[in-house]
């Protein structure tokens, strides 16, 4: 029946239009994202940001993360594996994007742990125990103290150090830089200043591989 063909053709045309529009929109967005990252490249790695790995490494991953973010937790071992897999070739810079309520307190704990040179250990613990202290997307630092004590850390000192007003400044700076660079979601990765084409494990891996290939 002719009418049936009209309906089927309409469905196909609409589907095609949708896909085309999505494709063009995404291409355009990526261009904007690249431009944005290039334009604000100097906001990517400020002196206060914590770094891991070889400072001379030619591939730098900058990660904007939120301790209470589940996807950040999932990416944490992946990033650690990358650093292990290519020793000396990749380094990591952590920037904060505490979007969840209460996350800024968790960041303050990290910065306080940094003063005891325990940043990376505490970050590991934080992600491992995330389900205990991040409830309904709300970070509850009071539930994290028990975990810290269990690992023999000086909790009293961390509680005191996390009141340092400099930490608030760091968080403010990181949030401002994140906004400039387009880090609106966590985790947001930049590899040698380049954003991912779209978010995902494969996309991160292929960008890291291509940067490794280009620099070594």
């Amino acid at each position, binding site marked *: 029946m002719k009418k049936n063909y009209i309906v089927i053709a309409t469905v196909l045309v609409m589907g095609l239009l*949708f896909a085309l529009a999505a494709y063009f929109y995404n291409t355009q967005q990526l261009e904007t994202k690249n431009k944005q990252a290039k334009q604000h490249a100097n906001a990517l790695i400020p002196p206060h940001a914590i770094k891991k790995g070889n400072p001379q490494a030619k591939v730098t991953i900058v990660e904007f993360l939120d301790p209470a973010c589940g996807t950040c937790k999932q990416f944490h071992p992946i990033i650690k594996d990358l650093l292990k897999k290519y020793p000396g070739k990749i380094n990591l810079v952590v920037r904060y994007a505490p979007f969840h309520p209460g996350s800024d307190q968790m960041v303050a704990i990290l910065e306080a742990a940094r003063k005891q040179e325990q940043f990376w250990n505490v970050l590991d613990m934080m992600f491992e125990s995330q389900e205990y202290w991040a409830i309904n997307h709300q970070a509850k630092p009071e539930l994290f103290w028990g975990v810290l004590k269990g690992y023999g850390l000086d909790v009293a000192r961390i509680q005191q150090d996390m009141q340092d007003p400099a930490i608030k400044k760091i968080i403010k700076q990181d949030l401002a830089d994140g906004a400039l660079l387009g880090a609106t979601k966590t985790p947001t990765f930049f590899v040698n200043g380049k954003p991912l084409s779209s978010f995902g494990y494969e996309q991160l891996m292929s960008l890291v591989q291509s940067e490794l290939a280009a620099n070594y």
Partner: protein
Amino acid sequence: MDHQQQADNTRWTLIFSAWLIAAVSTLGSLFFSEVMELVPCVLCWYQRIFMFPLAVILLVGLFPLDTKVVNYALPIAIIGLFFTVYHCLLFFGFIPENLQPCGKGISCADASMELFGFLPIPLLSLASFLMIIILLLKTRTRQ
């Protein structure tokens, strides 16, 4: 072509047009949320709840033509219209901000909900629901 067939043709066209509007609205709203990643506000969600099934149910009514589909589609469209009218009143400030039911997330009166910078999404939704209702009602008057 006899009279009955002609009447059926007209009804088919009316239901097809209503379906077309529902399908375009559905895809459009999916484009906003999935591609442009605009977070739908609470009122937008209620309108989506009543728009998305129209795209399905009207399509079913076309294969083969079953004019009874109007009986099922109309109540859905009319409830959707209520939400849109409320949303438009809110958006254009006829209902004060503090009465809005949107808590967490994006505000229903947010000006960022404008297409090309001048076409408010709630107004598009209002136009869609209104047109769908008018088209569906027309299938009844032209017996």
